[in-house]
């Protein structure tokens, strides 16, 4: 009996130490063209010197889940290692004709749409494998879209900690207050991934978010 208690005690201590050393799997979710890859690139460039993926003004540029392992982020005296998961934008509809506006050939547009649909399916599957999520929204768009509601609803249902980023605050149409009003329960950080504006506040919020991850484990 005593041996069992001692064994369980050491097992628990060892497990806790081991788990703390595990990289935090951080997913980037949101609608298409909100700037998920731009933000992931910004973080990767800040801490690894390399980018994660290509960005484009054409929606659904990211059509496969992209990873960056061992991203060591430092904030004040703390340091955490992340595995970044950049996911394709989640949409309820994908029309190849929307890509034709960007002067893409019909055949390529159809292929892009096909890959984008697979990307959405893959992105949703990955919800089971992330420790925390940064939901990236375009602050120039209406935040009350059903896709945003569905993403956040799923994260709540799965008890995954969420940080909301209102991206593109450098743009004239940006409305950060509207994003904050839509998500009063959540930490909403306004930033510009393109220009790196307000990244300091983002990292501060990210480290706050990781405390909730540890509680989950």
């Amino acid at each position, binding site marked *: 009996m005593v041996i069992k208690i001692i064994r369980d005690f050491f097992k628990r201590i060892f497990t806790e130490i081991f788990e703390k050393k595990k990289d935090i799997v951080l997913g980037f979710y949101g609608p298409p063209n909100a700037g998920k890859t731009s933000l992931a690139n910004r973080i990767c460039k800040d801490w690894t010197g390399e980018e994660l993926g290509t960005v484009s003004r054409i929606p659904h540029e990211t059509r496969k889940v992209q990873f960056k392992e061992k991203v060591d982020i430092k904030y004040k005296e703390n340091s955490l290692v992340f595995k970044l998961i950049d996911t394709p934008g989640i949409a309820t509809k994908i029309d190849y004709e929307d890509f034709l506006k960007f002067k893409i050939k019909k055949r390529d547009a159809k292929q892009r749409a096909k890959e984008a*649909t697979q990307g959405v399916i893959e992105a949703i599957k990955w919800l089971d494998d992330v420790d925390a999520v940064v939901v990236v929204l375009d602050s120039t768009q209406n935040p009350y879209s059903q896709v945003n509601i569905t993403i956040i609803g799923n994260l709540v249902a799965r008890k995954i900690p969420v940080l909301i980023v209102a991206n593109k605050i450098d743009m004239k149409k940006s409305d950060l207050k509207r994003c904050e009003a839509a998500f009063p329960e959540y930490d909403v950080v306004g930033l510009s991934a393109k220009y790196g504006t307000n990244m300091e506040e983002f990292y501060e919020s990210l480290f706050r978010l990781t405390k909730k991850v540890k509680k989950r484990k």
Partner: protein
Amino acid sequence: MAKTKLILSFIPYADIAKLDSQKRIKKILDIILKGRIVILQGRLNPVEEASLIQSTMALVGRVKDFRGVELAVINPSEKEAFFEKIKTNLARVLIGQRDALTVIGPASVVKEIKRDPSKVELMFKK
């Protein structure tokens, strides 16, 4: 001038209450694939909504002229802080909310569903 028919199909909550998630989604998508707009009494839970999106994406490109869906949930008791409700009343969300209405239509018929805290606007394609 040619007239186009717009058919709305109402699904009472009782019709889906006893169905499992897969059957609920199938029932909704079967109607949508006929080019109709579904008005569902209640709402799917968030995980079902994600499954609906996955099933929809699997059909895009496989079913002729199907480009996906437009989806919106209207909850009369929700105003600007409807996310609060999701968090604080999760159990209720998970089993479905009868007082909500879910509007789901084929993207080729419904151009856009604009939603703000107090209203929902459906814009149809001509």
